Each structure stands twice: as C-alpha cells, then as structure tokens.
C-alpha cells in the first residue's frame, strides 16, 4: 500500500493520502461482511430457529431487521462510523464490551507473541543471511519452512502434550487459574490485562500464575510469526548485502562481520517493517486459532463462540471491529515506515 501517488513527496501529504485510504478499506470490508452474512438469511432465524414464527417476527421487528436491507445497511454504516458495532442477539452483550474485555486478552496474547517472534525471528534471519547456503542457513531455512507449515493449533497441541501433560510444568489452558482470575478481576482500575492486573494486586504467586498461563499460547502464536520474520529478514539482508555500498565497504577491507552489523543490517530492516504491517492479518488470524486451542478468552475465542451459536449479528460486529483494528494498525505501521524511510513517501 506504499504505492500511493502524491504530487509532492512530503510526509504530511503522504500521511493524509494514506489515512484517506483507511476509509474505503474499512467500508469495503464492512459492506462485504454485511451482505455476505445476510445471504444466509435472517439473523434472528439462524440464532433462534427453535422459537415459534410469531416470536421470531416480533424479535425481528424489535431489532429493526424487518426493514428493507438497504435501510439496515445504511443505519449499520452510520453506527460503525460512530464505532458502535451493535449488540449480540443471543446474550445481549454489546460488541464494544467484548472489545474492551476480550480485546485486552487478545492484545496481551499478540503482544507477547510478537515479542517472542522479534526476539527469535530477527536474529535468526540475520544469522541465516550471514552464512548463506552453509549449514546454519540450511538449518534455519528449514526451520522457517517448518514454522510456517505447522498450524498453530497443532503446535499448541504438541506443546500442551509435552509441557502440560508429560512434564506438568505449565497449565493446559486459560489465562489464569480460576481463583486467581476472580481475585485479579477485582482490582481497580481493571485493565483486563491480566499481567498488569496481577501486578496491581501485588501477589507474586498470582503474577507467576498469569505468566505460566501465557507462555504456551504466546510461543505457539509467536513461532508462526517468527518464521515469517526470519524469512523476511534473511531475504532483505541478502539483497542488501549485494548492494554497491556494501560491496564498497568490503572493498575497503572491513571485515564481513562488521559489514553486516554496521552497514547492512539496519538498512535491511527498513523494508521488513513495511512488510510486517501486512502480517497483522496473519497475526490476528493465528490468534483466533490460538485462542480456540488454549481457551484463551480473547476476541477470536468470542468470535468462534458466536459462530457456533449462529449469532450472526455478533459475528458481523466482531468481524467489522477486527477490520477497523487491522486498518488502523496497518496505517500506523505505514506511518512508522514513512518516518524512518523517506523513499516510502512517494
């Protein structure tokens, strides 16, 4: 999405054009999701198929679902513009509430996953590029392929089998033990971020409990992203190592290790940042599967829950919210890339 044309290359005009692109992107996704989900038919009917027809008709009317589709669509668009994503049909939870409570869980999970991925993927990618086609590179490339090929839910299952069932070191699922969960949800302010909550609560054992619950899900999701980072860093560093200025550095007799560290590595990371923006979708898609595997009560877990109950109003709301989040994050990352690298602005 860095191909936006602006008459001048200034940062400001780039940002404005890029921001304006967020709106059609979200609009397209909202429209798509709205109409595709309505193809199935009436949301009330799918959620409460067992009720008598009069009751369904009454609820339809109450929810405004008996209006013409285009009227519903228009009012839905207006609501989304005000960041109002609706209320679940089955249990009347507002989607904004789900975003606040379960969103915190997803944020916690994805944050640690990205930290793990950066800590593992970037250095390994650098090693692979540095030793191109020799043993470390071969091994790491196979690792990269494997990390990509292994579905998060299978990796999660293996991790559980090893660390929870066999060794008994880590818990099987959830975000914290039940009694810990009850206790740390009573702190004020309740951030719904369990690590912060448990620190606020101030019991070391509770903090450790939360950390123990986080390790396996974060590693499962993080490894998927680490594989992507490894490949990105490797390819970009390889291309940078071929450029003339790096060759010039070598020609001056600088040792290869120093060439990689001082001259090539930082420049090779710039395109990686841009591409990382595109991985947000992969990260969130992976989060849905990870949350389902570890019963981690995040947005993805909730989404699957409502999918199972055929509550398509809730599904529509959550998916729309995810679209908004994805668009905003990729905007932010593009901004960061533009600030770092002037070439992106054109």
């Amino acid at each position, binding site marked *: 999405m860095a191909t936006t044309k602006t008459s001048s290359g200034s940062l400001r005009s780039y940002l404005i054009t890029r921001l304006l692109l967020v709106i059609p992107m979200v609009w397209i996704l909202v429209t798509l999701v709205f109409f595709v989900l309505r193809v199935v038919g009436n949301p009330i009917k799918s959620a409460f198929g067992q009720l008598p027809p009069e009751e369904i008709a009454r609820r339809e009317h109450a929810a405004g679902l008996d209006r013409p589709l285009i009227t519903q669509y228009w009012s839905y668009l207006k609501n989304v513009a005000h960041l109002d994503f609706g209320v679940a049909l089955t249990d009347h939870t507002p989607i904004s509430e789900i975003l606040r409570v379960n969103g915190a869980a997803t944020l916690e999970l994805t944050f640690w996953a990205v930290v793990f991925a950066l800590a593992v993927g970037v250095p390994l990618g650098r090693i692979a590029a540095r030793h191109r086609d020799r043993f470390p590179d071969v091994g790491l490339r196979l690792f990269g392929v494997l990390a990509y090929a292994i579905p998060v*839910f299978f990796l999660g*299952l293996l991790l559980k*089998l090893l660390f929870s069932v066999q060794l008994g070191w880590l818990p099987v699922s959830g975000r914290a033990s039940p009694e810990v969960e009850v206790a740390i949800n009573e702190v004020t302010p309740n951030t719904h971020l369990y690590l912060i909550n448990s620190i606020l609560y101030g019991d070391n054992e509770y903090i450790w409990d939360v950390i123990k619950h986080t390790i396996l899900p974060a590693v499962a999701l993080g490894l998927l992203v680490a594989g992507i980072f490894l490949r990105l860093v490797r390819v970009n560093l390889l291309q940078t190592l071929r450029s003339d200025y790096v060759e010039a550095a070598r020609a001056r007799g600088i040792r290869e290790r120093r060439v990689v560290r001082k001259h090539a590595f930082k420049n090779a990371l710039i395109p990686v940042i841009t591409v990382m923006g*595109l991985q947000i979708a992969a990260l969130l898609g992976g989060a*849905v599967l990870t949350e389902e595997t570890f019963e981690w009560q995040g947005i993805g877990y909730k989404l699957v829950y409502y999918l199972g109950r055929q509550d398509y109003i809730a599904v529509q709301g959550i998916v729309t919210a995810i*679209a908004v989040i994805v668009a905003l994050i990729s905007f932010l990352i593009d901004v960061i890339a533009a600030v770092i690298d002037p070439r992106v602005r054109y």
Partner: protein
Amino acid sequence: MSVNLPELEGTETALALSGGGRKHSRIPGVDAMRATAGFQRGMLVAGVVIVLFFAVLALFAPWIAPYGFDDDRTADGKVFGRLIAPSSQNWFGTTAGGEDVFSRVVWGAQTALEVILLAVSISIVVGVPLGLVSGYLGGWLDRMLVLVTDALFAFPSLLLAIIVNIAIVGGTSSQVGGILAAAISITVVYVPQYFRVVRNATVAAREEPYVEAARALGAPKYVVMLRYIFGNVVQTVPVIATLNAGDAILTLAGLGFLGYGIEPSAGAEWGHDLSRAVSDTAAGIWWTGLYPGIAIVLIVVGVTLVGESLNDVLNPLLRTAKVSQVVLPERAAEQPE
C-alpha cells in the same frame, strides 16, 4: 587447466530459462531442476517427493486405507472401541468416535488434494483473466478492483473464508457440496493474489513496444490481451499457485479446526480431527492429534519446498550462484606476459 569462475553465476540459469541458445526441455520442471544446484536442488527434490507421496496416498486411498473414513468396526463387524492406543489392528489408534486414525489420515489426503486442486484452479480461472482485463483497460473498474483486493489482503484470510463458507453452505452437507463449498471459500482468499500479480504485470507490459506495435497494426483489444500480453504475464502464476497450495491446505485445516469446511460425515479432514483431539490431550491421549497434525505439516512442507525453490530459481535476486568448472584452452607456451 581448470578454474572456478564465480562471475559466471546465473549464466546457466539464464540460458536454461530463456530457452534461447540452449536446448530446453518440454517436460515441465526439468528446466527448473537444471537451474538449481546443491541445497536448492535438494529442497526441490525433497518437496517433489513429499508431494508425490501424498498424491499417491490420495489417489489410492481406497486401497491403502484399511477401513472407511467413518467406519468404527472391521468389515466383519468387530467394533474397534473408543480411544484405543495404536495396535496391530489400528496402527494409529482410534478416535473418541471409535474410528481408525490411520484410515482417517489417508482419506484426509484425498480430501485435501481435492479441495486444493479445486481451489487453486478456480482462483486462477477467475483471478488471471480479471487481472488481465483490469490491467489492460484500466479506468475506474481497475481502481475499484485494486482497492477491493487491497482491503481483502489486509484482512485475516481465515475469517474471510469462514464468512464465505457460512454464506455458501446454508445447510448442504453432501460430499461434493462440502468439498466444493470449502474450495470456493478458500478461493476468496487467493483470487486477489492472482489478480494483483497479473494486473501489475499487465500494466507494465501495456506500454512495451511490442504491444504498441500490435496496437498500431490494428489488433483488437482482446487479441492484444490474449496473443501478446497473456503469455508474458502468466509466467509467475505457477510459482504463486504452488505457494498458495500450501497456504490453502493450512486454511482448509483452520476452517476444519473451527468447525467449518468439510462436514464430518462427508469426508475425513485433518483440521477437524485435530479440533476433536484438543480435548483428548488433557488426558494424555496423543495419537488422535499427532498423526493428522504430522500429515498437515508434511504436505505443507513439501508444497512449500517446491514453491520456494521455484521462486528462488525464477527470482534472480535470490538465485544461488552455480559455480561452473570452466576448462580454459591450453596457453601457448611463449605468450608474452
């Protein structure tokens, strides 16, 4: 006298792929094989072997699998029992539903292959022409399509596939319907990719002198597109198709894991089996999840290795130098220094 000349890197590759100057094979893949060396060739061969293995498994599933995918007893009516550990009767054990895990893994290969072939074919058939027309004609339609594909790109593909799957299925559960529905749901994710690649290549090719010449000769638009541009912009499609196939298997498994895609009664699907296995793991039962999981990993690794090596060969920036032994003619003894 023989010396290594690293400067000659890629010459061989360029020749093998350009088709000019050197004899070039009509058998697909042979040129690519010739262009690789060392580790890259190893990757390609390993990938091809794995993919062929699964293809055989899928094609001959009725003969390889000892039981049907949802049989819970032998042909003479002996019930397996639930969650039985691997034994001589059930090599990979049995599931919570009492089915033979080995048979389900074998039948799962067939499901995966069918869905992937369908999904990739549909994606190409829809995406390539769309990209060609959109890129060549340009205008508001082109801009609109680019915006839509950008939006689809940025969105988690699994969620997209789920939503489309909900819309398509709406109650059908016959096997063909299940496989077709799963394939179409996956297609939504990949059409944008073919569209973007072909469209961008078309936009670049549109201004080339040979296309200009065709236009100047009065060739109608469709002739320019089909005869002149098409052949030059589809070259990257096989690589994308291979890489997508691996991704599509993961998407199918993800759909199955979340309870979408293939109906359990319609066919064996690895992702679905894994979702059932999650609850078994807490009790220390490993065989219900391990084998379908390994199957997914293996086939995706195989497909990815093929795609990656093809990509390496076709992308000159990544191509490994193939160092050739060059034999120089004997130097004349009295040559001046």
